[in-house]
C-alpha cells in the first residue's frame, strides 16, 4: 500500500510500540510470580512502587523506544519525498496497536464513568461505605451508617487510612492501570498492587501506634459487617484479604522489614544517562532507521 510521509511515521510508531510492548510484557508476565513473592517481603509502600513500576514497564519502555529512537530517526533520516510503499505486516501491526490503544482508552473512560455512577449510587441509597472517590478533586464519602457504627477513634483511624490513599494518589494510579494496555498476567499484578496499597494505607494510618492499630482493625470488621445479607443473596467478599489485613494490624512488628538503603534510584539514573548518550549517537540513529525501514517495507 502507498502511504504518505506522516502516515508511515504513525504506522511505524504504532508497530514499534506494539513490538516493544509485547516483548517487554512477556518478560514482565514471566516475572510476575517472583515479583509478587518479593513484594510480600518488602515494606508495603516500597512493594506498591515495585508492582506498579513492573505493571507500567512495558508501556513505558515502548513509549521510550518510540519517543527517542523511532520518531527522531525517522524525522532526521527519512527523506520527505512523498508517498512510499508500505508492507501489509506493518499496517496490520499498526492497526492492532491502534485497537489496543482504543480498548485501553475505552476501559479508562468506562472505569471513570462507572466510578462516578457508583459514588452517586452510594450517596443516593445511603449504602454503608467509607471511600475516597475522584481523581482531580478527590473527596471522602462517609455514609451515615458507617458514622453511626464506628466510635470516634475508629472513625479517625478509618479516615486516616483513606488520607493515606489520598497522599499516595492511589485513585490516579488506578486510572493509569485502567488506561494502559493489559497483557495476560497483568491482572495478578494489579490485584497484588491493590492488596499491597491497602496494607500501605493501613500502616500509614496507624503509624506504629498499637491502640490505633486495634481501632482500625475493629473499624474494618464493623464496616465489613454493615448491611450483611445472607450468603446466597450475593457474592462473598475475599475473606482472606480482610483476615490478612486484621492479622497485620494485630501483629504489626512481625511484618516490618528493616529498611535497607536502596540503590535503585542511582542505578536507574545511571542507566538512563547511558541510554541517552547511546541514543544520541548518529550511528545509533542510522542503525535504528535501517531497522525501521525493514519494518515498514
Amino acid at each position, binding site marked *: 500500500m502507498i502511504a504518505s510521509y506522516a502516515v508511515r511515521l504513525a504506522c511505524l510508531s504504532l508497530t514499534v510500540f506494539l513490538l516493544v510492548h509485547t516483548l517487554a510484557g512477556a518478560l514482565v508476565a514471566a516475572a510476575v510470580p517472583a515479583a509478587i513473592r518479593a513484594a510480600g517481603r518488602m515494606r508495603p509502600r516500597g512493594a506498591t512502587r515495585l508492582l506498579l513500576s513492573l505493571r507500567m514497564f512495558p508501556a513505558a519502555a515502548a513509549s521510550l523506544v518510540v519517543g527517542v529512537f523511532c520518531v527522531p530517526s525517522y524525522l532526521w533520516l527519512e527523506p520527505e519525498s512523498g508517498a512510499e510503499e508500505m508492507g501489509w505486516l506493518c499496517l496490520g501491526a499498526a492497526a492492532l496497536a491502534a485497537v489496543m490503544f482504543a480498548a485501553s482508552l475505552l476501559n479508562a473512560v468506562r472505569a471513570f464513568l462507572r466510578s462516578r455512577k457508583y459514588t452517586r449510587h452510594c450517596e443516593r441509597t445511603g*449504602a454503608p461505605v467509607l471511600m475516597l472517590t475522584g481523581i482531580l478533586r478527590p473527596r471522602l464519602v462517609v455514609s451515615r451508617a458507617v458514622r453511626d457504627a464506628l466510635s470516634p477513634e475508629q472513625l479517625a483511624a478509618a479516615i486516616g487510612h483513606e488520607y493515606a490513599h489520598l497522599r499516595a494518589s492511589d*485513585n490516579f494510579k488506578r486510572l493509569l492501570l485502567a488506561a494502559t494496555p493489559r497483557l495476560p498476567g497483568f491482572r495478578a499484578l494489579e*490485584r497484588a498492587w491493590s492488596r499491597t*496499597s491497602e496494607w500501605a494505607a493501613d500502616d500509614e494510618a496507624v503509624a506504629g501506634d498499637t491502640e490505633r492499630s*486495634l481501632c482500625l*482493625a475493629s473499624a474494618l470488621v464493623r464496616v465489613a*459487617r454493615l*448491611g450483611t445479607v445472607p450468603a446466597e443473596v450475593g457474592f462473598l467478599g475475599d475473606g482472606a484479604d*480482610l*483476615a490478612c489485613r486484621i492479622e497485620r494490624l494485630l501483629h504489626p512488628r512481625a511484618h516490618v522489614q528493616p529498611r535497607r538503603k536502596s540503590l535503585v534510584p542511582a542505578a536507574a539514573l545511571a542507566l538512563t544517562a547511558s541510554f541517552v548518550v547511546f541514543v544520541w549517537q548518529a550511528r545509533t540513529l542510522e542503525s535504528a532507521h535501517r531497522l525501521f525501514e525493514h519494518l515498514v517495507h
Partner: protein
Amino acid sequence: MLGPLEILLMETLWRRGESTVRDVVDQLERPLAYTTVMTTLDRLYKKGLLDRRKAQRAFYYAPRYSRSEWELRRAGDLVAGFLSSCEPERELLVSCLVEAVGRYDEALLDELERRIRLRRRKR
C-alpha cells in the same frame, strides 16, 4: 426489591409488632382480601424478611429486622446489584475502606472480632 403492597405490610408489622394475618388485615386503611394479605406475608417470610411461628392454629408474623436494619440491608443490596452489573470495587477508581461491605462470612467476622478482643486484653 419490595413491591408497594409488601412495603405496606412491612410498615404495618413494624408499627404493630408480631401479628396474625387477621390482625394485619384489620390494621390496613384500604380493604384487602384476607388471602391477598396471607399470600403476601408468606412471600415476605420466604424472602427472609419475616419470622413466623404457629400458635392456636394461626401463623404469627414478626419482622426479622428493624426498619433501620432493613434500610441498611436494602442499600447494601442496591450496591451489590450495581456491582454485579459491572466490575468489583477494585476495578473502579475509588479507594474503599473495605471491599464488598456486607458480603463477608459472618463466622469469619466473629472470629476476627474475637481475635481483636483477645489482643486488646493482652496489652
